[in-house]
């Protein structure tokens, strides 16, 4: 795990050159292809996402999606936010390509949305080094790695039921 996170960070620094030089062709944040509606059709990694890891990423310190969204399937996690819509039944409302586009950079689907861009490297206004409040040293990795995005999307695809 540690190993692959490190590689993902490097892939950003060296962009496509690095990616093509390795066995797995991971798409760097700036190379992601969106269609005009903000959809991303192609997997970022070519490796199928793991919904279980995706569910874990919905929590604090990772994607922290439930800071803003309610998800009944994760009701064991306390204090779910209500800034964005409930994600119950998201897979019925959106295709996989649309969900990938929303997680990678929701601003292409919902202009000016408050939702952060999870697979994006800026430019940002006064980016910080995580939650330290200090300036970062060197380039920032995206908030989620490419595979983490695939895992989250795989998890969202399991949310077929409207619950309440």
């Amino acid at each position, binding site marked *: 795990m540690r190993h692959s996170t490190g590689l993902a960070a490097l892939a950003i620094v060296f962009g496509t050159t690095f990616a093509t030089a390795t066995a797995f062709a991971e798409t760097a944040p700036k190379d992601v292809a969106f269609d005009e509606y903000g959809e991303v059709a192609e997997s970022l990694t070519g490796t199928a996402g793991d919904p279980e890891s995706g569910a874990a990423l919905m929590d*604090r310190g990772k994607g*922290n999606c*439930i*800071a*803003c969204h309610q998800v009944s399937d994760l009701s064991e996690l*306390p*204090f*779910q*936010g*209500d*800034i964005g819509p409930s994600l119950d039944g998201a897979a019925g409302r959106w295709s996989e390509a649309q969900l990938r586009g929303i997680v990678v950079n929701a601003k292409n689907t919902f202009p000016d949305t*408050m939702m*952060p*861009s999870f697979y994006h490297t*800026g430019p*940002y*206004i*006064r*980016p*910080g*080094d*995580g*939650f*330290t*409040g*200090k*300036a*970062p040293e060197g380039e*920032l990795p995206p*908030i989620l790695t490419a595979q983490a995005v695939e895992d989250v999307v795989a998890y969202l695809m399991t949310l077929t039921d409207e619950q309440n």
Partner: protein
Amino acid sequence: MTKTLRYAGLAVSVLALTAMAAGAQEVVDDQLVVNGEIPIVTEAPAPDYASALGTIRSGWTFRSEDTQMMQADDFDNPGMLGVEAARAAFNSEMGTGGESCASCHDDPESLSTVRGTYPKWDEEHGTVQTVEMQVQECQTERMGMEEPYGYNSTDMINMVALLSSVARGTPVNVAIDGPAEATWKQGEEMYYTRYGQLELSCANCHEDNYDNMIRADHLSQGQINAFPAYRLKDAALVSVQNRFRGCIRDTMGETFAVGSPEFVALELYVASRGNGLSVEGPSVRN
């Protein structure tokens, strides 16, 4: 709805009798009346330039009943310990001239119009000054102190808490025009700037989403009429600009320094969004 203050905490205290004698302290219809005698305006019509809010609301209106009630009685408000410390400092000699604040200002009560009108344009220095800067100015220029209180030091936060406490119930009324206008505009622009890797502006949370939950937090309008705030989580009084620092840090952003010109501008702008509320500090927050 009438909320009657509970005396459980006080029952064990020697102050209990005094507090009981002070009469019926109640939070009536969600109205904050401190010590049963200082009515606080916690909701007011928004000024024109903050019309997106419709009604401006003190952070007090967003807190739990327990937290609200702690602020309704000085005996229950832990922030008042800082006020008492500053009251002693107010009367103590500082610096080289053997002077205290009281040498020029009688008592803190004589400064009750200060808190609600700061940050304020200072003609002599040609800049907008916060209360902290004004205290530092007195200390260095009038009292001969080489080392004034640090901007975010405990001594300073306590002194600002004292100046707030004597101003409780007076309106927030900062001037935004004339020479202060450029600074105010700078603050306004900052308020709507999406900082950090999460690209969030003050307005995203405190204008577009107040009353919503962000994880465990019930978002308020981010008003500053109630500062310094005693944060139960930190068990300490927190200054306005330290709160700003925390909020920008939470955007995964690089913060500005407490006391920086940027934060002074932001403080003027945010203060002006509360014009019409009462000065309320030191408040109690979770």
